């Protein structure tokens, strides 16, 4: 992997599901490309967020875009569901790993299918799973506990609560992940469709510095 992206976060809320990722492409430890979007709108019901090698992500994007075009051309009124895309991606990534030539990515797929929201993970080994909250990279260690704590409550968070939680997690990641950046994007999927918000800048709190 050459130019890489760090964590992607995913969280279900009461109206759908949302993904968040920062906008940096790192070249080793160098924050080389600071305006990259790692969130991709696949169709009106699905978004994909990628971490790992960004050249492989671009390749994946081309494949997905072509698939969506071919499907539109069929004109049968169907479009790929988030679950179907997750399944397809799993096969793709697993087969590449089995040829010892992986696409060096960990991706989150988020979408709304009919009334149900979907959030899934697939990585370069072909490992795949679904859960109401997910994160790749550093996020899996630092953000997941925070996301899960929120979901342990009686009800799913509202859209605003979810948005705030994702921002809080991204801030923690900005403090503690040396390959992160303070500009980020959020993608929200609901019954109504996909909204891509951003890029926005995180405010960091350094007050504790004065206590040392």
């Amino acid at each position: 992997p050459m130019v890489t992206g760090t964590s992607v976060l995913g969280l279900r809320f009461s109206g759908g599901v949302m993904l968040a990722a920062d906008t940096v492409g790192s070249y080793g430890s160098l924050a080389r490309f600071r305006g990259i979007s790692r969130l991709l709108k696949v169709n009106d019901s699905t978004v994909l967020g990628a971490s790992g090698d960004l050249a492989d992500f671009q390749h994946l994007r081309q494949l997905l875009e072509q698939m969506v075009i071919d499907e539109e051309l069929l004109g049968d009124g169907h479009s790929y569901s988030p679950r179907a895309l997750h399944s397809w991606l799993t096969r793709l990534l697993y087969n590449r790993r089995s040829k010892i030539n992986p696409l060096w990515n960990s991706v989150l797929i988020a979408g709304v299918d009919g009334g149900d929201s979907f959030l899934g993970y697939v990585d370069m080994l072909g490992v795949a799973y679904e859960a109401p909250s997910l994160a790749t990279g550093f996020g899996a260690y630092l953000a997941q506990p925070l996301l899960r704590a929120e979901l342990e409550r009686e009800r799913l968070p509202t859209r605003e609560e979810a948005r705030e939680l994702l921002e809080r997690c991204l801030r923690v990641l900005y403090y503690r992940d040396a390959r992160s950046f303070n500009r980020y994007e959020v993608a929200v999927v609901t019954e109504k469709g996909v909204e891509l918000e951003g890029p926005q800048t995180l405010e960091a709190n350094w007050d504790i510095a004065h206590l040392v």
Partner: protein
Amino acid sequence: EWTAEPVSTGTTIMAVEFDGGVVIGADSRTTTGSYVANRVTDKLTPVHDRIFCCRSGSAADTQAVADAVAYQLAFHSVELEEPPRVRTAARLFQQSCYRYREELSAGIIVAGWDPRRGGQVYVVPMGGLLLRQPFAVGGSGSSYIYGFLDATFQPGMTRSQCQEFVARALALAMVRDGSSGGVIRLAAITEDGVERTVLAGSDLP
């Protein structure tokens, strides 16, 4: 020792967009290990009349890919019956650099002018990613000037401001990077053509 080392365009390369075209620049040092094999290299390679590439990484790899892309572009522009787009040239570089990413060591900046979108700069770093940027730097020397670039770059510079910006940046990198040096080769690509200059010795900022 040096006979076992690949020939590398150690390098600092740079390209900046302005309204009406692009300014590109590079140093002129090619190294084999720590021996300077060529001190007057031209790393600004035309792939079409108004489209150039700046080459960094392995000299052999970048020359081979650039030759292939130049051929493909020439063919393509005959089919199109019009000058090819800079984006097309960049995409062609990306296709080779991504497909053969394991075998190649090539960091390329594609820059030029076309009638559709004016001046454009695209970067194809190692790994085969494709990205358009208002300005781009590459090569081993680029590490030393990120600070200078972040502090100094302003969008909306004129052609001569861009030329000065590129010359100053390259000069700073060439001083600090052992794999970069020699003369600064600049080129300005616009609708009217390509104007090449060389800054040497006392001309360097």
